[in-house]
């Protein structure tokens, strides 16, 4: 294993010292456990000026029905756009689903009775005034079709501090939401 050794701090510039003490990467901002029979969970005070971009991961627990998980920025109830991309397991044919001026991003994740809740999403500039964009790595399966990615944008330019996750069908029980900030 190679290690980096500094023999003289005076040889380092400010950025090098900062990177050694606080290396760039993901920093855990907030952890939220989901309760029982919950139709929506609001995670507040997740976004701040401390970080520009964030990753949200939800895993564990289950849904009362097989369902997509929707993501909404707190306070923004319209102006959501996006598209999910996928393909059929059986035929390989491409498939898609869209959100056109919706009230949330409809395909941010999924969950069910036999699968845990799953959402892994990068959120770009939610606290900065301007449009927020997302990229969700794992959206959902329906029948023989798997949707592997969802990208979205909201036309609202508000500065947000939190978000809401809700299933399109049924309720959620358990699972843990973790919010990470991208430290530069």
């Amino acid at each position, binding site marked *: 294993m190679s290690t980096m050794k500094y023999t003289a701090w005076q040889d380092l510039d400010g950025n090098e010292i900062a990177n050694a003490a606080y290396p760039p990467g993901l920093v855990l901002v907030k952890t939220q456990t989901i309760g029982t029979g919950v139709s929506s969970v609001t995670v507040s005070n997740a976004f701040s000026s401390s970080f520009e971009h964030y990753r949200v991961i939800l895993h564990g627990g289950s849904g009362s029905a097989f369902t997509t998980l929707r993501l909404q920025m707190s306070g923004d109830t319209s102006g959501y756009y996006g598209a999910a991309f996928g393909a059929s397991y059986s035929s390989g044919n491409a498939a898609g689903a869209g959100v056109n001026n919706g009230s949330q991003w409809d395909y941010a994740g999924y969950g069910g009775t036999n699968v845990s809740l799953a959402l892994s999403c990068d959120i770009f500039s939610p606290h900065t005034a301007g449009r927020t964009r997302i990229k969700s790595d794992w959206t959902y*399966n*329906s029948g023989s079709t798997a949707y592997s990615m969802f990208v979205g944008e909201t036309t609202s330019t508000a500065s947000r501090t939190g978000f809401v996750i809700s299933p399109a069908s049924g309720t959620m029980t358990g699972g843990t939401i973790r919010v990470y900030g991208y430290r530069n």
Partner: protein
Amino acid sequence: MATWTREELEELYPEGSVNVQVDDSVRPMTNAEWDAWVEQQVGVEKMEEL
């Protein structure tokens, strides 16, 4: 394509059984919230679980 009906939803999720959560606070939906929630899910496609 099968979709959820109000009768199915009322049977699966009777009044008082559905909660809303804000951070660590979990509370049952009010009757008005529950009614709106059920109505919003009527007609939603039942996804096929693998």
